């Protein structure tokens, strides 16, 4: 929830992007201006810029690298001075210990099920609603869209207590349904798809299909869905990550180890009185690796999603 909420929020602010002051060029002396422009274009980042970026990269990557180092060590090696900074040889053994201590395989499957279901649902329903808001005319459209935007900022996580009571009523506590159901839709997805389809879907195409007698749903299925694909990938990646990393609600509602998602299993490992650090960090690494794989493959879509969210609106 949090990550999408963040992406959202960034979306609305810069909405008046085109109305910003300073659009008008300053009165200038063309000769000097052209020269300045050339200088600006030529301005190459110095060595300091690259050095800073390398340092940033180091700080970004190091904690993740370090979890790998600890995961590949014997627990006693961690007590050494200086602490180890190079990987050891105990990785496989530690991985086996993780799977022996908690049903981590089950947790991985649970997380895939939850995140997969949530992602499919969010992308589908967001595209459906986004299509309606972007291209169909209906009474109350404006008010309803404003409602969607407004709800993006509402900290729904504060509703956990009645939500828990609701799950008790439905007898869904300690099942994956309890985790999936509240994630099936989110306001950010609807807003994101509305924005995208507004620009990407030519109204004339829809008109033409209508003239040819296509029903609205047929237009959705055969024209809107294919058009929405690039945005669906972005929304899908962001949603999947958020669902995979969700922790607070699954922790509250899941109580038996075979229902745990990865995050809850991970926290249960670190909850004991005596913590086996190399065990905990091996599990952390295992929980993070699938995300790193997704990131390596689709990271650039994430970046464009975050940056689009910031500019559009």
């Amino acid at each position, binding site marked *: 929830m949090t990550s999408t909420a963040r992406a959202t*929020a*960034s979306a609305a602010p810069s909405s008046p992007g085109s109305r910003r002051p300073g659009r008008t060029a300053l009165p200038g002396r063309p000769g000097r201006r052209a020269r300045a422009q050339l200088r600006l274009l030529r301005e190459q980042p110095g060595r300091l810029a690259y050095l800073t970026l390398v340092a940033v990269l180091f700080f970004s990557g190091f904690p993740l690298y370090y979890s790998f180092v600890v995961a590949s060590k014997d627990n006693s090696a961690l007590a050494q001075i200086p602490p180890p900074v190079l990987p050891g040889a105990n990785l496989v053994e530690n991985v086996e210990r993780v799977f022996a201590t908690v049903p981590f395989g089950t947790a991985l499957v649970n997380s895939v099920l939850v995140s997969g279901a949530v992602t499919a649902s969010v992308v589908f329903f967001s595209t459906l609603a986004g299509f309606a808001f972007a291209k169909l005319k209906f009474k109350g459209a404006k008010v309803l869209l404003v409602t969607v935007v407004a709800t993006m900022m509402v900290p729904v996580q504060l509703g956990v207590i*009645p939500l828990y009571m609701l799950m008790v009523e439905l007898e869904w506590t300690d099942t994956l349904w309890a985790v999936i159901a509240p994630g099936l839709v989110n306001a950010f997805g609807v807003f994101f798809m509305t924005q995208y389809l507004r620009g990407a879907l030519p109204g004339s195409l829809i008109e033409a299909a209508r003239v040819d007698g296509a029903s609205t749903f047929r237009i959705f299925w055969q024209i809107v869905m294919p058009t929405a694909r690039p945005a669906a990938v972005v929304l899908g990646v962001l949603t999947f990550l958020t669902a*995979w990393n969700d922790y607070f609600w699954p922790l509250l509602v899941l109580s038996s180890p075979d229902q745990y998602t990865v995050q809850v299993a991970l926290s249960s490992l670190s909850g004991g009185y005596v913590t086996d650090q190399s065990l905990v960090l091996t599990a952390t690494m295992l929980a993070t690796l699938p995300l790193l794989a997704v990131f390596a493959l689709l990271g650039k879509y994430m*970046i464009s999603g975050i940056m689009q969210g910031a500019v559009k609106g």
Partner: protein
Amino acid sequence: MTLAAKETAAPAARPSPASRSRRQHRRYRLDLKASPYLYITPFFALFAVFGLFPLAFTAWVSTHEWSLLSDDHVFVGFGNYRTLLSDPYFWNALGNTLSILVLATVPQLLAALLLAHLLTQRLRGQTFWRMGMLLPNVASVVAVAVIFSQLFGRDFGLVNWVLESLGAGRIDWQAGSATSHIAIAAMVAWKWTGYNALIYLAAMQAVPREVYEAAHLDGASRMQQLFLVTVPMIRPTIVFTAIVSTIYGLQVFAEPQLFGGGGPNGVTGGASRQFQTLTLYLYEHGFNRGFEFGYASAVAWTMFAVIVVVAVLNYLFIRRIRSDS
């Protein structure tokens, strides 16, 4: 356009009787009228049931002595709120939360601005640097909390080792109020700095180049350009990142919980509650001892109020900065 061809072929071939065309027309009108509402219904229905209703119902529950363990829900009015406001642990949690919030958000957003500014230059390998910055955001809060708890460990933590080799003493990060807040703020900042930098970068790219050319002609250095030209122009974006960070920061949970070891020490946020946040306090009362749902709901609504107040203050503060400069 294959569908078009298929659909038109039939009626054109054999002219349909008037009644049929009327029926078709009615169906068309119905489709046109009802479809939009049908398409937005799943969102609004599900969001109402699992999002808005619980939030609203929290208010009702908060006025009751309400426990999951008993069927009697005694109306107590503002009783829960009175108890809450007279509980020193609540004020402690509020103070901790605000302290962590400031320690995490201010350096984070400043660093994000500088990073974004750096990235506006014509760098080689743009995508590579951007992905590098976003990397921490991919890790889950749980993973971040676990890894940083190890790094900030008293005896074998890497941070203490570095401090020691630099000649400073070891720090028991968990024990102190300020030190534990710094450690937790570091987790939040590490995860979100790159993310915010990307948002700023997007906003900066939308600033027209002429403005910078003019500033350049006036002899402004790159740093001056950032603070005198860029910052005022991307102010709406800055306001929003600040507000969103605030909303997120006021609900911080996993970081302190796992920093305290996840067990009972995690729930109270350290032995003397030195880093118990508001959400941990809610968790302690609502789910950790006896399901005091009425009281925990009062905590939730109070948090809601705090979030609104802090977000508004945030907004006013940042607007003020702009009008001063």
